[in-house]
C-alpha cells in the first residue's frame, strides 16, 4: 500500500534520510522506532509531503507521490496526525473537524454530515466542546482532536507521530486504545512513538531507524525481534 524505496532527504546541509526502504501493507499497524534525531519525524514529513525527498521512490497504492504537494497527498487518502498535534489556532473544534472533511472534497453534503455525526459519537468530549477554540482543549483532548479530524475524512493510511508525548499515562492509555481500535477496523497506520513498549502492543510490525536508514525490521509479536530492537535503539 505504501512503499518507500531508497528515499534520501536533505535538510539544508544535513543528509537526514539516507536511503530508507520499507512497505506498509493493507490493514497493518507499523511502528517506527529509533533514537532522537535519526530521522523518524523527517520520514513522516517526507511521506506527508512537507519535505520533498531528494531521491528515491515513494508510492502509495501503486502511484508515485514523491514531490506532490501535501494537500494532494492528503486527498489520495493519507491522513497525518503530526508531532505536537498542530491543532489549528483560531479555529473551533468543529472547524478543525470540518477541515478534515477537505480530504474528500467531492463528498455529498449529507454524507459529510453523517461523517461529522459519527465522529462526534465516537469522541463525545469533542462534541461537548465543539464551539470551543481547539487550542483551549487539554493535551489529551487536543490529541483526540488531531486524530478525529483525520478520521472524519476516512483516510486509507494514517501517519501518527508521537501521539503520547507530554500526556499523562492515563490519557496516553486512551490514545493507544484508540489506535488499537483503528487496527481492529483495518486502517493501516505508520506510528512513531517514544514509548516503544506501549507502542509495540498495538503494532503488527516495526522498523528500527538508525542514522537515516532502516537497520532492522521485525514482528511486534516476536520476543526475539523485540529484544533485538531494544539493543538497536537503546545503548
Amino acid at each position, binding site marked *: 500500500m505504501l512503499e518507500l524505496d531508497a528515499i534520501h532527504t536533505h535538510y539544508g546541509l544535513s543528509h537526514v534520510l539516507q536511503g530508507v526502504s520499507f512497505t506498509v501493507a493493507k490493514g497493518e499497524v507499523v511502528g517506527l522506532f529509533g533514537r532522537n534525531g535519526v530521522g523518524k519525524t523527517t520520514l513522516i514529513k517526507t511521506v*506527508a*509531503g*512537507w519535505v520533498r525527498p531528494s531521491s528515491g521512490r515513494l508510492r502509495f497504492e501503486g502511484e508515485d507521490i514523491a514531490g506532490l*504537494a*501535501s*494537500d494532494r*497527498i*492528503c*486527498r489520495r487518502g493519507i*491522513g*497525518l496526525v*503530526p508531532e505536537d498535534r*498542530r491543532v*489549528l*489556532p*483560531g*479555529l473551533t473544534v468543529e*472547524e478543525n473537524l*470540518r*477541515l*478534515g*472533511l*477537505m*480530504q*474528500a*472534497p467531492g463528498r455529498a453534503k449529507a454524507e459529510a454530515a453523517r461523517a461529522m455525526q459519527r465522529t462526534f459519537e465516537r469522541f463525545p468530549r469533542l462534541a461537548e466542546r465543539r464551539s470551543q477554540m481547539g487550542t483551549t482543549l487539554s493535551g489529551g483532548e487536543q490529541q483526540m482532536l488531531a486524530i478525529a*479530524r*483525520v478520521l472524519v*475524512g476516512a483516510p486509507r493510511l494514517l501517519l501518527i507521530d508521537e501521539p503520547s508525548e507530554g500526556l499523562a499515562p492515563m490519557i496516553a492509555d486512551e490514545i493507544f486504545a484508540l489506535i488499537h481500535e483503528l487496527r481492529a477496523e483495518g486502517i493501516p497506520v505508520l506510528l512513531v512513538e517514544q514509548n516503544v513498549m506501549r507502542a509495540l502492543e498495538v503494532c503488527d510490525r516495526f522498523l528500527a531507524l538508525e542514522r537515516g536508514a532502516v537497520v532492522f525490521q521485525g514482528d511486534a509479536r516476536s520476543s526475539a525481534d523485540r529484544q533485538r530492537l531494544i539493543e538497536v535503539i537503546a545503548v
Partner: protein
Amino acid sequence: MTEILESLQFVYGPQVANGLAIGVAVILMALGLTIIFGLLDVINMSHGEFYALGAYLAVTLVGQGVNFWLCLALVPVAMAAIGYFTERALIQRVFHTKDRHILTLLLTFGLAIIAEDAFKLAYGPNPYKPESPISGASEILGIMLPNYRLFLIAAGGAIIVAVWLVVYRTTLGAMVRAAAWDKNMAASLGVPVERVYAGTFAFGVALAGLSGVLLAPIYSVFPTMGKDFILMAFTVVIVGGMGSIKGAVIAGLVLTQIQSISSLFISPVWSDPLVFGIMVLFLMVRPQGLAGRLGHG
C-alpha cells in the same frame, strides 16, 4: 444653551457624521489589506492601485452605458480575476523564499509604480467623476448628510459584516484561517493552500476594487488616487492589528473620528501627522496592534 445646540448641530454633529462616512471608506480599504496581510504575510503596497483600477473599471463601464449598480457587482468579479492572476504570476514567485516579507513588499511596490503610470497612459491625467447614482441630501437631527453617503455607510457596514461572516462563520473562512496559521497542517488536512492563497489575494483585491466603485462618485477618479486612502488604511491596519478584521473596524472608526474632530482645533494639515504619530506610538508600545491576528476575532 442654544449656543451649545448650535455648535452640536453645525460643528460637532456633522464632524462625527462625516467622519463616519470617511471611516467606512477607510475601513473598506483596510479590510482587503488586512486580510491579505493576515493570511499571506504580504504587505500589499499596490492595494491603492487596485482600488484605483476598480474605480477606473467603473468609469469605463458607466461610460459604456452600464448601470452603476451593475458595476458594483461586475467590477469586484473582474478585480478578483485580476487579483488571482497577480498572485499566481507574481507573488507566488517570491512567496516561498526566506525574505518573502521584503520581496513581496518590493514586488507590489513595483507593481504600484507601473499601475499608476499605466492609468495615465490609458486614461490621461485628468480626473473623471461618475455621476452619483443617488442624489440629494437628508437632514437627520439637523445634520445634513448626502443620501449617497448614507448609502455608503449602510452598504459599507453590510460589506464589513458579510466579510466577517465569510471569514469566521464558513468552512471557506476556516480554510483561510487554517492556511494563515499553519500552512503545512492545513495542507495535510486537504486544504489546497496554494489556491487558498491566490483566492484570498483575489478576495482582498476584489474588496479594493469594490471600494473603488463605491467611492468614485464621492472622491472622483484619477491616476494618483491610489495614494489617497492607502496611508490611512495602512495606519488603520497597523493600529488595529495586522490581519484583524475587528481591529481594523475599531481603529478605522476611532482614527477617522480623531482626524475629523481634531481638524476643528488644529490646522487640518496636522491631522495626518497626528494619526501617523499615533501609529508610530502604537508600533512602539503594542506592535501587535489592538487585536491579534486573523483568527483571533
